[in-house]
């Protein structure tokens, strides 16, 4: 039941070390700024409010509704968190959710956690904020525009986040761009509808029972222009780059030959170290057999050791 249908939580092993590290650096910088920013806005309330809301979003991801053929609609929550709490707080909330999911439930890897934070907490929130503010600005701050803005924000945040995941997989060489990007985009266009409907339902409920929660937050989104701009940039880059990478699979290779980035991104890090030939075991098959024997000996030894200490404890205890 903890398994969310959207394939946005990348496990370890699917991103190359370089891509993981670059996304870690970006995420650390943005989350670090968000911590400061939210500290200014909320003061000492920051810890309880962020912590409990993160728990709330986590629990909210358990809520689902049946769609058709055994599939169900779920919530990721970036959009609703953004609309309720403003972009910087939402980045912190989603970062906490994604981190705890990776740490405790292995829903997403540890080394790739920077990438998962980037996709769900930063891309998800920035895109949702950009769309929501734009719709409110175009249609005025009416109930109808809040609901419409909420739906589009939720749908697009999922869709763009999925494109971001697909691009990272393609850059890491773990999934071919011409198949991964359309597949991810197609599946998440549907999943995003579920996200959008739940978000609209939640907003309608909140507008009816606690309109203060939505209105109050709206008046104080300081520093939101930066997020709006980031959101717009992310959408533009991914919407333009994805079809290019899809229709011209050589596109990525072209980027590679232009600046050598792609081959670096795909190579295991130490391919950068110059060649070195081992004088002893050069045959890979032989090495595999040796490793197999060595591994079996290690496991056998540990197993034997554990069994021995346990028997000792049992005989001395009983």
């Amino acid at each position, binding site marked *: 039941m903890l398994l969310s249908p959207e394939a946005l939580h990348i496990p370890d092993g699917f991103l190359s070390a370089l891509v993981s590290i670059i996304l870690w650096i970006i995420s650390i910088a943005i989350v670090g700024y968000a911590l400061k920013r939210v500290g200014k806005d909320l003061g000492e309330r920051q810890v309880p409010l962020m*912590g409990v809301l993160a728990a709330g979003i986590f*629990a909210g991801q358990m809520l689902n509704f049946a769609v058709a053929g055994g599939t169900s609609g779920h919530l990721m929550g970036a959009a609703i968190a953004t609309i309720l709490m403003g972009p910087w707080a939402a980045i912190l909330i989603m970062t906490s959710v994604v981190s705890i999911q990776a740490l405790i439930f292995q829903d997403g890897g540890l080394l790739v956690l920077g990438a998962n934070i980037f996709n769900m907490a930063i891309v998800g929130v920035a895109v949702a904020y950009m769309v929501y503010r734009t719709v409110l600005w175009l249609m005025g701050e009416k109930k109808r525009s809040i609901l419409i803005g909420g739906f589009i924000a939720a749908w697009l945040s999922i869709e763009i986040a999925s494109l971001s995941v697909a691009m990272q997989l393609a850059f890491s060489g773990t999934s071919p761009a011409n198949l991964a990007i359309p597949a991810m985009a197609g599946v998440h266009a549907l999943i995003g509808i579920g996200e959008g409907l*739940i978000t609209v339902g939640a907003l309608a409920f909140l507008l009816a029972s606690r309109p203060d929660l939505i209105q109050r937050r709206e008046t104080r989104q300081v520093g939101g222009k930066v997020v709006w701009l980031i959101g717009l940039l992310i959408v533009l880059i991914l919407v333009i780059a994805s079809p290019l990478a899809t229709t011209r699979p050589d596109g990525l290779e072209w980027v590679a030959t232009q600046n050598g980035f792609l081959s670096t991104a795909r190579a295991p890090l130490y391919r950068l170290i110059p060649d070195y030939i081992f004088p002893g075991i050069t045959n890979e098959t032989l090495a595999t057999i040796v490793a197999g024997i060595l591994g079996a000996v290690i496991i056998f030894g540990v197993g034997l050791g554990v069994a021995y200490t346990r028997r000792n404890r049992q005989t001395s205890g009983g």
Partner: protein
Amino acid sequence: MHIHFLDPYQGGDSPVHRTDARVKFILTVAFILTTAIMPIGAWPVYILLFAMIISMVILSAVGVIYVQKRAALAFPFVLAALPLIITTPGLPLVATHVGPWEITVTLAGVERFVSIALKSWISVQAAILMIATTPFPDLMVAMRAVRIPRLLVAIFALMWRYLFVLADEALRLLRARAARSGDSGISDLRRGGSFTWRAQTAGGMAGNLFIRSIDRSDRIYVAMLSRGYDGELRAMPLPEMEGSNWIVLIVGGVLLGMLVVLALLLR
């Protein structure tokens, strides 16, 4: 029904349980990093990495089957890498026609796909072992020790504390909905109303949950204030690490370093 089953910690008194959380945290991340930088097709190294992690699982006594069951949850993502077997150029293994397309499975593709799946599987076992043998508060100490911002660690800690409370609330909401959406027993008639009704209800439940979260955070804040909270996060100083833990850290680090060197030599 409570949601305590969510807590993945498996109590015990093994050497792995007794090792300092900081050592486990650092070695786990180092292990996953080592696995990540291994090249495609470095079979001997994969075998040794697997031997290392499975030995630790045996030593921890949390159960090999338990770890494998949890590891299986992360498995479906492997589908994302499956197309590699037909898109990687290389020696063709099998070629078939599917509709108008000719599909060729290549040796290089299969090698690449199996490598990614293995690396992912080995990594997730390390993460599972760490979380199954380390209580959450100790993990928070480890996170502070590796300089994750204290504010963020405090938010994580509070989130963890109320995760179970709010997950219980979500379960109650789900149960209340199930109780009110009659099951007709007719297969065409789904429980509950139309598609929009179901979506709206789920949305209402989510909204309800957020109100409860925000209200609860207000109460928690007031409770914290009444106990002297002034916005400053105070934590116990990090406990000293015992000598034996340093030895584990160094030995683990050296072993992983040796694997990296080995992989270099194998090329």
